[in-house]
């Protein structure tokens, strides 16, 4: 169940990232999603890796800006949040990517 939600989240993020890649010409941009691992290369901006962690029912994020984070799913709000300070995965990704790419990025609704 949680695995399916994780899949759905990552696929949603993948869609948005692919559209960004199609619409904007960013040097070194590459997004790949296979075997439950989403890799986003931003050239000089670094590489983001998002992957499912089925045993813990989490999504793990590796960010070149803010390092590693682990997100749990909150069924009530339908969001993935970081247990230590309760920020959501959308917030951190939207902020960091908007910063690196220079335009507004909204990964999930």
């Amino acid at each position, binding site marked *: 169940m949680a695995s399916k939600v994780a899949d759905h989240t990552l696929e949603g993020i993948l869609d948005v990232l*692919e559209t960004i*890649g*199609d619409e904007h010409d960013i040097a070194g941009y*590459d997004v*790949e*999603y*296979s*075997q439950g691992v989403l890799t986003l290369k931003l050239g000089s901006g670094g590489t983001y890796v998002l992957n499912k962690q089925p045993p813990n029912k989490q999504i793990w994020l590796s960010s070149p800006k803010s390092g590693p984070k682990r997100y749990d799913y909150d069924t009530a709000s339908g969001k993935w949040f970081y247990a230590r300070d309760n920020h959501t995965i959308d917030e951190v990704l939207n902020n960091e990517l908007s910063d690196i790419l220079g335009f507004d990025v909204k990964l999930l609704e």
Partner: protein
Amino acid sequence: MLSRQLQRNILKVAAAPSVRLSLAKQAPRVVLFSLRTFSNTAQKQNASTVETLTPNSDSLGFETTAIEKPGRPIYLDMQATSPMDPRVLDAMLPYLTDLYGNPHSRTHQYGWETERAVEEAREQVAKLIGADPKEIIFTSGATEANNLSLKGVAHFYKGKKKHIITTQIEHKCVLESCRVLQEEGFDVTYLPVQPNGLIDIKQFEEAIRPDTSIVSIMSVNNEIGVIQPIEEIGKICRKNKVFFHTDAAQAVGKIPMDVNAMNIDLMSISGHKLYGPKGIGAIYVRRRPRVRLEAVQSGGGQERGIRSGTVPTPLVVGLGAACKIATEEMEYDDQRISRLSKRLIDGIQSKVEQVVRNGDDVHTYPGCVNLSFSYVEGESLLMALKEIALSSGSACTSASLEPSYVLRALGADDEMAHSSIRFGIGRFTTEAEIDYVINHVVGHVNKLRDMSPLWEMVQEGIDLKSIQWSQH
């Protein structure tokens, strides 16, 4: 070049592991291969025998002496398959002997070195067609690539787009895939071709509907060699936001193909048509704008999840090497083959009358010459030309007695379709071979026509279409 005896001995010893190690370090080309000669086994198969068959009472008094000359027939069936370039074999050998790791093994050197070779080959293939290496996926051949393109794209977009356009002269695998999709509920338009083999661009544009998902038109036809107007088709497809797939198995490495200049979204590549190994091919899948496909083969997610399965390193390296050689030698090969092709056509048409070339004169790949000899049956001519390896129509339909559907689509009547022979000229065809072929073809055509009652009637001026044949 080493002597035959030495080669034989080396082949015997080469299997020993200790020798293999040292062999892998030397340049294999010196040891194992001299250009286009054959191993001991192949020679034995061609040992000459002389056999005389005494006639029986109903053989009309003909006595036949079958003398099998040593050596193998001249190979002029390049569209069926092509001999492997020795340089390709050289590139493959280390991966067939010493470097046998699985390219997906991430934890040891065996995996890393083969992965590097696979990625290098990918770049070589991409360079040949003007693509990005990330857009090349290795498959088992063009048939798999065609299936993947059509079924993959059709299934992915089946929610909103239900229409597919293709032509009547496509390869069997494309037509079969379309037929299967039709049975699943898709609409397929099979575009007719003009008598010269080219599609009518206007007719094609009119066939596009708002719900068309993919157009599949082959670049070079395998039976008649005709080259479709790929650039124009690509432009129209891009304008109408329809995916354009082309089966370029016979085109890649022979005519310049550029996926960006020609607006191609998907392309099928076949290894053994460009002097590479059999059993390998590739599919080009465009990333910008992205083409989405549903994978047909499920598994460990290799090749970006589009085609699971261990990538066969030796074959892939062979394909890469073949593409690299093609990039470098395409122009030279083209000039040479054009010259030989002209020599062949002029040679035959000047000495024999009523020979028709199937397919357009200008927009045809010179290495594929399909000729129809009126009043001569194709199969009997092929049988007579024992020392030349030819084909009438395509290899995949040669088992059935039906005349080629490609020739039928050109509007050729059945007699002309039955009397067609396809000459395939390639990188290793020599002028001497072409001259030999001209002489023999001319000789046998004349002999067969002498025997033909239809030819006699035509010479007397009788219109064959006016004859009422009696039924049995």
